[in-house]
């Protein structure tokens, strides 16, 4: 589904990603972990097509297609979704308006008929339960005045509504209390299935108690320095990033 080959990317002339190789197949959950500044958030933004990041070397293939030249909206319509670490507030634009327009633009891309507002309303209401959200949220402006937890739930609601092939979850767990973390994780578990790929970027291991990854990758200074199964996350939690990374460096020497 997603294949990243020797990816280098920079922002404002500073190189952040220094040769990433990663492959995600349908049905797989990959966790990318790493200390602050390791480049893990950058990785998800580059895949989603953030215009501030420039790919200087390497390729990103989505379903066999090189997507490097595609703008963020084109990638989204192909089926890539980014759940933001810091969801953006957009006063004056209602949640339902945003989701309906986004959903219909994806349908148009696939040659499907647009959903009218009434049909869409029914469709969205079915999805609200996934993240235990009050229907009143639909009429509120996007993330405007939302608490941190509400913003993250809203990202997962959009994920459920837009139903992408690949979900990039950028530190979706950060800033959540335990109840909110449970709701968000369970929501993600309900949405993921054998046809979808998930890239879960996280600083902490705790979300992996709820969402079981198939692979865990440790990112350091723009490179994946260690990959393994779900037990790697537990090891990170127990020993800390420094020890893991040191032992990697030790092996290299």
């Amino acid at each position: 589904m997603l294949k990243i080959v020797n990816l280098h990317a920079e922002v404002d002339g500073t190189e952040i990603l220094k040769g990433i190789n990663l492959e995600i197949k349908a049905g797989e959950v990959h966790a990318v972990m790493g200390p602050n500044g390791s480049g893990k958030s950058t990785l998800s933004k580059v895949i989603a097509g953030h215009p501030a990041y420039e790919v200087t070397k390497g390729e990103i293939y989505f379903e066999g297609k090189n997507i490097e030249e595609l703008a963020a909206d084109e990638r989204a319509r192909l089926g890539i979704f980014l759940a933001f670490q810091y969801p953006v507030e957009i006063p004056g634009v209602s949640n339902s308006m945003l989701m309906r327009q986004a959903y219909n633009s994806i349908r148009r891309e696939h040659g499907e008929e647009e959903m009218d507002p009434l049909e869409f309303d029914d469709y969205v209401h079915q999805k609200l339960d996934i993240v235990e959200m009050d229907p009143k949220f639909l009429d509120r402006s996007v993330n405007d005045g939302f608490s941190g937890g509400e913003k993250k739930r809203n990202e997962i609601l959009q994920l459920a509504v837009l139903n992408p092939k690949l979900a990039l979850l950028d530190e979706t767990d950060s800033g959540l209390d335990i109840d909110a973390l449970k709701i968000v994780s369970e929501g993600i578990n309900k949405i993921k299935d054998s046809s979808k790929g998930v890239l879960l970027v996280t600083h902490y291991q705790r979300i992996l108690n709820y969402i079981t990854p198939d692979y865990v990758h440790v990112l350091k200074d723009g490179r994946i320095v260690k990959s393994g199964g779900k037990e790697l996350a537990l090891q990170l939690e127990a020993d800390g990033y420094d020890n893991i990374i040191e032992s990697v460096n030790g092996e290299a020497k």
Partner: protein
Amino acid sequence: MSSVTAQETTFNLDTLNAGKVPVMNLRTVDAIKSEASVALKGVPFPTTRDEEWKFTNIKPIARGAFVQGNLQSLKAVSYDTATVPEAKDSTLVFVNGLYNSDSSNVKDLPEGVIVTNFKDAVEKHSALVEVSFNKANNFEDDYFTLLNTAQFEDGAFIYIPKDTKFERPIHLVYITKGQENTASFPRNLIVAERHSEFTVVEEYIGDDDAAYLTTSFTEILLGESSHMSHVRLQKDGLKAYHINRLVSQLQRDADLQSYTVSLGAEIFRNDVRAVMQGEGSHATLDGLVLVNNNQLSDTHSIMDHQVPNCTSHQLHKTIVDGKSTSVFNGKIFVRKDAQKTDAFQENHNLQLSRDGMVYTKPQLEIFADDVKCSHGATVGQLDDEQEFYLKSRGLDDKSTKEILTFGFATEVIESLPVNSIKEDLRKAVEVYTTRGLSN
């Protein structure tokens, strides 16, 4: 080539109403009118050399030889009061500054409430008019205030007695229609007694093909603990010139929520003022301006905190496209006695084109020492992170810009008190954004 040459910087007063001052047949009012007429002769027509008119060149107004609307043109116009269904039985219609009784519809008013035209009020409620007319007017040596005072022939008169809640919005419609160079001078007087509650919508509309002039003046006197919602919709024709003054005077605990939405006119100058004379009073003077092509919209405001414990709120948003210009000058006065004042002012300008101009100037003059005044002004393009957020959801570039522009504007619209007007404005904003972006 025309054989007549006019001095560029003087306004041709003589063509107006053949140089005469319209008479209202009420001694105090007529005395004020003739005083204004005399004073006007000593006040020069404003130019960009005047600090208050620095960015607003009104030479085109000086060049026109305007004549007041006549009764003939009045007959040719009709208006369906159900356009704003909430106000279908509480609508006054004015055409070219004159009252159009055929199109107006006012019925089933609560006891003591008066919604009528000024001329009628002068006849039937002369005592009320005499004690309130021109009382809040604090525009000194202002050319257009004097012009309106001298030249007005009619306008709206609204009186809400004490302890009265009037649920329906009162809709005042001002239509300009007919030949080039029509001038109208609507004069509105709104008086609310203590503990009253009501909503007034002023709406100005006109043809796109004629250059006409509207010089309007609205005066609002709010008694103790009265609550007024006020909407002013400027939807004039795109060649129109519109100069408006709004002044309100608030007694103890009075509350004014006033919103001005400006969509039309080639040149629009709007001066809005709230004078908080009673402790605990609150004034909101919000504004939304959408300009395109060669339009110019200039808002000057004064929030005058004269006594302690008053609050004020001002959110002024503008969207500038094409070669249009937006000017905002927001003054907040906090007088020596006005401790515990809480004043909020924000001006946000969204620039959609490279050729648009934005001038913004917040001016705070604070003479008390225990006050909270916040103000901020921004000028900019659409926010990059918001754009990326929407695009990452699949919206293309055009839809993203439309939806963000729409969102920027609707923040003001959402506060409006009348649903059908909100809906109408949402559509107007959509038209503006799609038209602007297809250029």
